[in-house]
């Protein structure tokens, strides 16, 4: 089947920042993203698990599929939010079906 080149960006970030991140993405022209729950993790700021959290804390993973030429805009938008916070950003090359969709 015909596929189209894309970038898959995965941003793991603190849950209280979720709305700020998706707002920033939307402003940068990102038209689609998927948010996955995160159960726990470990990084420079230590280990944590979802069951050991209260309130809005914890983290989420935001996955965006975008056209390669929009990658830089996306990363800059994401970075303004992620910069001072706990979290990681990774990018992979991908192919997508239905390019009209994104």
């Amino acid at each position, binding site marked *: 089947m015909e596929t189209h080149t894309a970038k898959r960006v995965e941003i793991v970030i603190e849950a209280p920042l979720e709305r700020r991140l998706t707002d920033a993405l939307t402003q940068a022209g990102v038209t689609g993203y998927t948010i996955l729950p995160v159960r726990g993790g470990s990084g420079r700021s230590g280990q944590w*698990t979802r069951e050991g959290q209260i*309130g809005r804390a914890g983290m989420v993973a935001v996955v965006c599929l975008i056209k390669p030429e929009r990658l830089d805009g996306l990363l800059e938008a994401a970075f303004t939010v992620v910069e001072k*916070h706990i979290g990681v950003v990774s990018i992979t090359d991908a192919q997508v079906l239905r390019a009209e969709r994104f």
Partner: protein
Amino acid sequence: MSEILSLAGANLISPIILSFALGLAAALARSDLTIPEAVAKGMSVYLLFAIGFKGGVAVSAHGVDQTLILTVLAGLVLSFGLPLIAFALLKIMTGLSRTDAAAVAAHYGSISIVTFVAATSVLEGRMIDAEGYMVAVAAVMEAPAILSALWLVARGGGGGAMAPGLMREIMLNGSIVLLVGSFFIGAITGEKGLEEISAFIVTPFKGVLCLFLLDMGLIAGRGLRQSKGVLGAGAVAFAVVMPLIGSTIGMALGMMVGLSLGGIVLLMVLSASASYIAVPAAMRVALPEANPSVYLTLSLGVTFPFNLTLGIPLYLATAQIVTGG
């Protein structure tokens, strides 16, 4: 003194406190016992709804005292003011950075609703009435402390500007909305409304509180285990001293505005307790450089258990002695 001890003793062997202790012990022993996050959140919705509703019914039954407005004002003063005291104390007692100290201070100006609920249970167990609107005072005290903390940071030139939308987010925080909303529902529907749903929000209340505190114990224990070594002795001492100072100031204000014995105790508890839901979330947005391990460990790992076990009976005994009640 022996009265205080026997009161504390009686408090310590209640199912509520023992459930907390069980959770704490299980977490420290690395048991895999957990309460699913969704269930814990569901229980907190239940507790907030119940406590707000009952507060509203109490107000509808006993009418609005003339002290209501004064008490709300007292709550505002406490929530704005206590962070300044906490910050000064932290600067003396610990080596925390300005930002970390401000973040911790915000927690101690705000309140812990579960500590409030536990205190309500203790008062009920001793047949001591309290003003129903203390719930509304609790809601009022949640947020202002955050502003004081941001001001403390901004004054030091360390940023701490209000992120756009943050103020709205804090004020419309789920706990505040639920507490205030159910307070109004209780006030509107009154005793008749309470009768309809008391088999849900009154009779099983204490049992749900046990399971909720079991979970709090698990979380506090895991937090303590993971943050071993993060805190110095000074910080830990602060987390015990600050509630004593807060409760004393709360008692003074409570007496000034003319609250009943029960009301005074609850205001002491609100002043003494530290937030671990609303404020940590706000801090992650507003002061991301502040280290969450520090403020969560102090608030949830030290001050919360202290208030739950020793603090509440101590504040009650003190208020009884001072007011002669």
